[in-house]
């Protein structure tokens, strides 16, 4: 009898636990890397801290003091989310930052299929903490329509008045400080009615984008194995056209090189970070007519999608030839990132279709040389620049308490003192000032040389030597590393790690050319074109091209292309093209077209 009662009690207990577990899931889940405290606990903690603070005299607080609080930020940036210390507030940098400002941070990241999808879901649920942070190169980025909708619907605080009183962000009001797109389409948008909801981050104080600086520049593009260059006796910079590239691939194939594992090399391998349909632009440069999100303008002023021109067939024919003759890896468009790294490192690819000089496979040895670059439709093979730009955004919740404190904290991070702390850590501990510039200490350099990333991220919490804590660095704006610190990449020059990258950028400089304007799709964000936008965004030109490239039957290829053209028409592409023609006629610098027939 007793045993039966025990069983009953156990069953009931289990049932209660299960029911509570299910119901717990209905509540808001707080997850952070710094404590996972629940809201009540957090409030109580803050309250206690505030009481303790009240006991302190005002004179104990430095001039930079803002408030004793924890700012909870949700980041939609995988590079931050996957690389956080166990407790960011325990790092030397955050402890110093808290001493100066009183602020602690709670950085939260939710993994998902993509950061933009997680952001859309969280904004839709209305569940955002004090502030959110995400990627945002410019207003054409796919996340922007979602955050812009959230802003119009009042999810974010209006920062316009507060910004005017800040040290750094007040510069955003100065004429010519912000890039045109940032000013008109992100920060001071007309449809926000004078309100400011977004801080575009990582804006440079000085525009140096027209200068090829070997210490700063990433040398990206195709890279070829040096042993093959030596063996074939070629000048890798002489490969400028698709035909020359084809001839080179044929020579490599005929030479029959083998990789580190003894397997035959593929003359052309996929991009280092994983194959994708967008890779179609990498090799067919001469035929890449749709330079602005697949759109461009003819010399007589007609805007078209590349699919509506013959260039689509030229591209398909070029790739088909490469595939048919086994000159390009069959999985060029689809190989996952793990394997593309593997085939690059084992030298299974004679040429890597796209990589840059700050990837270890390139800077870690002298086995690779830049190839080309190929010329574009304008016979130019250098790099385009468009002036200043940003690559992240922050927005403060309209329900955050005292948003001016959050803005003040963000502002402090972007001051010289804030940036010095974020990039170099603590003076006397991680760096010394020499001739007015910070220089990392020898023991810190040794840690960098030894690849001790945990020291940089978990102990110091700074961002030097090309590594360390990204969470704070991402929030910086008004960057001017050369003037402030005497080097474009903080701490990079302190070690020999990236010497090869600088050497390559010095030996193979790129000609720079100004190409103003936004990508064409930026002009799809109007009320009138809302339906066209919804339809066009569902069409994927790159995927259609790859589908056609792999189709063996020529009649089917035509069918695929014609079907895509019909889809474009049905989606309303002509309406969009007419709109682009109007915009371009009014201001040719508004869209980054390269007029060509």
């Amino acid at each position, binding site marked *: 009898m007793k045993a039966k009662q025990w069983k009953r009690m156990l069953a009931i207990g289990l049932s209660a636990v299960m029911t509570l577990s299910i119901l717990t899931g209905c509540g808001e889940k707080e997850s952070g890397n710094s404590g996972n405290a629940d809201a009540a606990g957090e409030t109580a903690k803050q309250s206690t801290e505030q009481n303790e603070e009240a006991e302190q005299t005002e004179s104990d607080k430095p001039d930079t003091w803002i408030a004793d609080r924890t700012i909870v930020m949700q980041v939609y940036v995988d590079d931050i989310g996957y690389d956080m210390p166990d407790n960011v507030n325990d790092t030397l940098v955050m402890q110093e930052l808290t001493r100066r400002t009183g602020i602690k941070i709670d950085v939260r990241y939710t993994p998902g299929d993509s950061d933009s999808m997680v952001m859309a879901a969280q904004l839709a649920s209305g569940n955002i903490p004090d502030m959110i942070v995400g990627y945002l190169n410019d207003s054409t980025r796919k996340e922007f329509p979602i955050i812009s909708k959230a802003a119009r*619907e009042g999810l974010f605080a209006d920062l316009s008045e507060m910004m005017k009183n800040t040290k750094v962000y007040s510069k955003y009001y100065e004429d010519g400080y912000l890039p045109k797109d940032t000013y008109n389409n992100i920060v001071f948008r007309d449809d926000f009615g004078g309100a400011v909801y977004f801080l575009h981050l990582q804006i440079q104080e000085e525009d140096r984008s027209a200068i090829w600086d070997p210490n700063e520049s990433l040398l990206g593009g195709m890279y070829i194995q040096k042993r093959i260059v030596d063996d074939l006796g070629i000048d890798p910079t002489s490969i400028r056209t698709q035909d020359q590239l084809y001839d080179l691939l044929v020579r490599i194939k005929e030479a029959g090189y083998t990789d580190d594992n003894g397997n035959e090399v593929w003359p052309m391998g996929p991009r280092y970070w994983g194959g994708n349909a967008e890779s179609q632009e990498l090799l067919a440069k001469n035929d890449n007519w749709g330079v602005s999100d697949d759109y461009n303008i003819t010399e007589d002023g007609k805007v078209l999608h590349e699919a509506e021109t013959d260039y689509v067939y030229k591209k398909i024919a070029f790739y088909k030839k490469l595939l048919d003759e086994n000159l390009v890896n069959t999985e060029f468009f*689809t190989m996952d990132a793990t394997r593309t790294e593997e085939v690059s490192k084992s030298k299974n690819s004679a040429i890597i279709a796209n990589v840059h000089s700050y990837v270890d496979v390139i800077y870690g040895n002298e086995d690779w040389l830049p190839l080309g670059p190929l010329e574009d439709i304008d016979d130019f093979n250098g790099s385009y620049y468009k002036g200043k730009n940003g690559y992240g955004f922050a927005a403060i919740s309209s329900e955050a308490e005292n948003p001016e404190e959050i803005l003040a904290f963000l502002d402090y991070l972007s001051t010289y003192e804030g940036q010095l702390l974020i990039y170099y850590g603590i003076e006397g501990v991680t760096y010394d000032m020499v001739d007015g510039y910070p220089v990392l200490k020898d023991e810190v350099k040794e840690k960098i040389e030894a690849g001790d990333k945990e020291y940089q991220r978990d102990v110091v919490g700074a961002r030097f030597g090309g590594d360390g804590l990204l969470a704070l660095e991402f929030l910086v704006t008004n960057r001017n590393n050369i003037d402030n610190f005497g080097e474009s990449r903080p701490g990079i020059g302190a070690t020999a790690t990236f010497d090869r990258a600088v050497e390559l950028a010095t030996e193979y400089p790129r000609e720079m050319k100004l190409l103003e304007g936004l990508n064409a799709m930026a002009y799809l964000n109007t009320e009138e074109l809302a339906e066209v936008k919804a339809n066009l965004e569902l069409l994927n030109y790159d995927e259609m091209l790859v589908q056609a490239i792999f189709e063996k039957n020529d009649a089917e290829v035509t069918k695929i292309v014609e079907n895509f053209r019909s889809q474009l028409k049905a989606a309303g592409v002509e309406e969009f093209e007419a709109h682009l023609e109007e915009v371009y006629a009014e201001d040719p610098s508004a869209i980054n077209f390269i007029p060509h027939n």
Partner: protein
Amino acid sequence: MKTASGKKARMSSGKKKSWKVLLRHYWPLYIMLIPCVVYYAVICYVPMAGNVLAFKDYSFRKGIWGSDWVGLKYFKTFFHSYDCWRLIRNTFAIGFIKTILEFPFALILALMLNEIRNMKFKKISQTITYLPHFLSTVIVVTMLQRVLAPNIGILNQIIKIFGGEGSTYYLMESNYFYRILFLMDIWRGIGWGSIIYLSAISGVDPELYEAAELDGCGKLKKMWHITIPGIQGTVGLLFIMGIGGIFSSGYDQIWLLRTPGNMALADTLDTYVVRIGLQGGQFGYASAIGLIQGIVGLVMVVVCNTISKKMTEVSLW
């Protein structure tokens, strides 16, 4: 009249009494039922209210209930869209494979396992067939990509050994897509799916087999005349429940198997909903398509249940 109402009252009181008796005797069981009820209420029924989004212009600030009504706008947009019928066709095709074509295989495996007399071999076979169920779709698809890779994949290597070219890129050719999907599902789900049939088979009266043996029935005849009719109810119920998924392809598997080469077939309503809903932020439109899928599934279940009830007396209700 009085008598009748008095009888009714007594019956009613008796009924109430019986519930009380039931509760008093079996209250621990009812308490154990609570988590299931709560689970279905919270996870399945409450979120159904969100379907109202299919008729609203969703606003982050106003929320589901406060957003403005737009009527049937999204449904009209969908049925007028260029891709509508292609998406419907692709979804039905994959739904058909998953709910109809794949359906008998778990049953066949259960019948085969039931005939194994060597218990050790039976257990090993069962374990081996169950295991793939516990692998995540990402892992299975990654393995598949390696196995089917052109030139270096195991399948192509084997083809090369036997004198073939061995360079076929299976995942980039649409004519292999359905076959890959079908085989992946079978490999992954057949063992797990057979558990419920094995359990139903174990409930068939052993005396029936003994009687059949006396009548001279062989294994096949016993299977055909005793086992299958014995589990007919379970088979019918599972089929009716499964048919609700005929207008659904699932998301993760299709998304991961999708390549530019097979996208003509792999673009389905489920992947479309994710693209426009979560990537494009059109929550109302995505909900409308999800609702269409749900309604079609419900109709299929009701129709199949009615037909099954009339023809085989097996039904969900």
